[in-house]
């Protein structure tokens, strides 16, 4: 049976026994699946088998049975961390040696320690440099006209004659009118503080 037989051969009866060629093909495909699961998928296979194998892999992955080997997992994590700090990707062979394993175990600590030291140094420099801040130019402050200001009422009245000593009512009227002028002037001027 060739690859084309699947498409061109007559459809067997549902309850019919499997033919020897079908059994042989099923066994071959089962072997391919077993090898793929154990990470030894054959490099060459028929297009139909490859399509079926991909479907089988997807089905297996969706059932949560796909799991990387611990070494493979560790290797991937370390590669990602190295890439994050700008390091080069190590050759796979270095991890397999005893020194490589030790280096791989301590590498994250080395990265963490050195980056923390650099961060501390940067913050120290920042802190030491902070007092030397340039004086910020101040916005110009204009003198407010005297009429806008709260001030003693003396100049409005001068000395109060004895016969006017109790005439506070007239004085408060005059004082109120004077302050109202200044208040309105300030409020209505374009630059006046509101």
């Amino acid at each position: 049976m060739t690859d084309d037989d699947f498409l061109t051969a007559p459809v067997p009866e549902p309850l019919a026994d499997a033919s020897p060629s079908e059994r042989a093909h099923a066994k071959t495909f089962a072997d391919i699946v077993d090898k793929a699961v154990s990470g030894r998928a054959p490099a060459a296979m028929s297009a139909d088998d490859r399509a079926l194998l991909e479907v089988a892999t997807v089905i297996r992955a969706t059932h949560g049975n796909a799991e990387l080997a611990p070494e493979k997992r560790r290797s991937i994590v370390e590669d990602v961390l190295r890439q994050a700090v700008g390091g080069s990707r190590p050759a796979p062979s270095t991890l397999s040696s005893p020194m490589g394993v030790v280096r791989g175990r301590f590498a994250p600590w080395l990265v963490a320690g050195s980056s923390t030291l650099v961060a501390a140094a940067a913050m120290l420099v920042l802190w030491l440099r902070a007092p030397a801040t340039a004086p910020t130019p101040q916005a110009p402050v204009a003198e407010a006209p005297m009429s806008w200001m709260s001030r003693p009422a003396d100049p409005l009245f001068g000395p109060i004659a004895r016969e006017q000593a109790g005439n506070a009512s007239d004085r408060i009227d005059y004082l109120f009118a004077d302050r109202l002028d200044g208040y309105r002037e300030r409020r209505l001027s374009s630059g006046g503080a509101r």
Partner: protein
Amino acid sequence: MKTANVGAVVGVLLLAGAMFLTGRASVPAPPPCPTETNVTHVKDGRDVISDDLMVALDQAKNFHRKAKVYMSDGNLAAATSTVREILSLPFPKGAPEADDVRLDARALLAKLLVMQGQIDEATRTVDEGLAAVQRESFFVANLYTVRGEILEAKATNIDAENAGDKTKSADVRRAAIEAYDKSIQINEKLQKQLVEHK
């Protein structure tokens, strides 16, 4: 191994934070651009004529008007209590107008009390005002004038009680003269200052 990985990530984050801070520190802050408001910014916002000051002055004006109506109606007691209200009006803290308005109200209040024969209460009203004075003004001088008037009235009462024996009221008269002198002295000093400033 897991802890080591977490440590590495924390270190990287710390480094990134430090780089961020250093970068920010090296960027000079833009100078404040003058806006229409701060170009004419008043030196001290507390010193300008504020809403609160205007409200207080308006209240004082209204109380004086009300007291005037009571006085024209002969109701001196109501006028007195109305003028008292002015003394407790809330003015902005440190507003010079507050002192002036209160001193002037005390002068009127004392006169109203004298008109009702309450000489001691009038004296107390004036003395309380003079005790709280923090700067000399024409209103302070006016209050000394009123104090002199009160003491004159007191001396007259003492004379009447002693059948015209003026020896017993001599001290009070002397105190009245001192009050008038103080008023004159303050007025002269302030007038001189005003002339110098013009």
